[in-house]
């Protein structure tokens, strides 16, 4: 069966697109076409993509309302920052330091996810939303009151070791892993829970287990986003990770389309850049931003992509172009024919 050969075409296409986009953006940055300011925003885009795609696991695919995703981001950010400060002397390489710190960040977020997720996932819908919202606030309060995080004054002395390539490839790895995961029996099980929990239980899916797995994955990759953020900004304050940030991430997921990774990537890019481009409108900036959200929801309530994905495949692309070309030629021929018939 053709469908189950390893699809080299797909693998090559995806790798080519990932590398292609990287080369273009990186060249523009290196050549100085993009200012340092735009480079900074691009890294923020990468962080937004990581946060949105990770939240998409819990909210888009699993269908659970999670309003405290910034809590996991905060734990990841602080965990990575503190371990990097401690390990700075031991590990001279920036990249290795980032990887080690990110691994620690993931472990911390994962642990937090387990502690919160196990009781929380007994709840459904709005109740779960309120509980996760509470979790986010608890994290914020704890970080404000701890000695080691330097409380409300914020954590400084974080090595600013984030470069655009590292941020970009971290994002690519996270998105690819999530995409690969969703395309397996485990991913299907999660989507079936979103569609109908009772039915999925009745075909033998252990609903509790998959809810926790999904929640943990979201938490873990959320921690990765926090780590990238910490090394990019170099300063962390608990207020950065408040309710508003959770909502920002949530908005990206809803706008991109619940359950669409490509939607989350697009929406994260647009919604991070948009407020910056709107700076020309000064005072009306936030108004325009909000109005755009309202309009999108009015005219496309399922989000930009719905649950669809953009399939990256050169072969499919060339097939489509060929099909279009053939159709075009055929209509031309027919038109030509009628021209002859009716002079």
């Amino acid at each position, binding site marked *: 069966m053709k469908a*189950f050969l390893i699809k080299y075409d797909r693998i090559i296409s995806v790798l080519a697109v990932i590398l292609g986009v990287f080369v273009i953006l990186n060249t523009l940055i290196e050549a100085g076409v993009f200012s340092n300011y735009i480079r900074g925003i691009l890294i923020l885009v990468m962080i937004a993509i990581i946060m949105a795609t990770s939240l998409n696991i819990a909210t888009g695919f699993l269908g659970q309302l999670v309003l405290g995703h910034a809590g996991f981001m905060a734990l990841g950010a602080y965990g990575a920052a503190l371990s990097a400060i401690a390990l700075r002397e031991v590990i001279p390489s920036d990249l290795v330091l980032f990887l080690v710190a990110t691994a620690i960040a993931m472990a911390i977020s994962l642990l937090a996810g387990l502690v919160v997720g196990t009781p929380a996932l007994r709840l459904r819908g709005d109740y779960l939303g309120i509980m996760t919202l509470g979790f986010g606030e608890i994290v914020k309060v704890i970080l404000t009151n701890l000695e080691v995080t330097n409380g409300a004054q914020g954590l400084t002395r974080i090595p600013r070791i984030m470069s655009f390539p590292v941020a970009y490839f971290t994002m690519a790895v996270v998105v690819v892993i999530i995409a*690969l995961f969703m*395309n397996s029996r485990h991913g*299907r099980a999660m989507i079936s829970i979103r569609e109908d929990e009772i039915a*999925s*239980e*009745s*075909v*033998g899916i*252990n609903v509790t287990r998959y809810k926790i797995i999904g929640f943990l994955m979201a938490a873990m990759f959320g921690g990765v986003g926090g780590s990238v953020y910490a090394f990019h900004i170099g300063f962390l304050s608990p207020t950065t990770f408040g309710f508003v940030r959770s909502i920002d991430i949530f908005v990206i997921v809803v706008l991109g389309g619940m359950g669409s990774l490509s939607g989350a990537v697009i929406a994260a890019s647009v919604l991070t850049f948009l407020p910056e481009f709107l700076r020309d409108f000064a005072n009306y900036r936030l108004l325009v931003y909000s109005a755009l959200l309202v309009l999108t929801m009015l005219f496309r309530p399922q989000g930009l992509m719905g649950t669809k994905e953009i399939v990256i495949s050169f072969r499919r692309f060339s097939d489509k172009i060929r099909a279009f070309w053939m159709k075009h030629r055929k209509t031309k021929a027919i038109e030509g024919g009628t021209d002859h018939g009716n002079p």
Partner: protein
Amino acid sequence: MAILDINDLSISFGGLKAVDGFRLTIGENELVGLIGPNGAGKTTVFNLLTGVYKPTGGTITLSGTDVSKLKPSDIVLLGSSRTFQNIRLFKNMSVLDNIRVAYHHRMRYSLLEGVFKTKRFRDEERESHEVAHALLDVFNMDAYAHDLARNLPYGKQRKLEIARALATGPKLLLLDEPAAGMNPQETEELMETIRLIKDTFKVSILLIEHDMRLVMGICERIVVLDYGKIIATGIPDEIKKHPDVIRAYLGG
């Protein structure tokens, strides 16, 4: 050995005894009908059998294992699966994927194998594809494989739900009002389908239904429930003439 052996099954909600002293044995490849007026407790029996409710008394033995305290998903693994009175499909998934979800527990590859797409992943996924297509073929629905389940016509949705239940590899199939909302012609087709399932998959079937033509037409044995209690058991012809059954349905 009996596939299903229910002994003295009871459940009460507060003071209401919804099911009281229910007993039933279903043998291999047998087709049993469960009927009764509205509110008699038929669906409650199903919910007890599938683990949605936990019984307050009695035992349910499925192929030798007591399942009365198990979770719904674990009961499915022991070989019983169901359809619902109001269709519950995974509406935004393709017809094929609806069935592949039900094939989930018959695959073994782990989370990491799923991410790295190992050989086992590819083998088992291929198998799930083949099984799903074969099942759709039986139901004459292979042409719809890549449509979203929500876009199927009503009768086909019913069929898909049955196909999905069969994909779990059950020994016992529980059908909750499969003919609900169908016109006479569709019901006729459904009767054929149920016979076909019974012969092809060698499953035992327990069926709740209001359409008497269907029940009397295909069931080998019928159990009548009223106010949570069994009022009659027997072959269709006995049930038709049974005075208690007539009284339950017509009053008096």
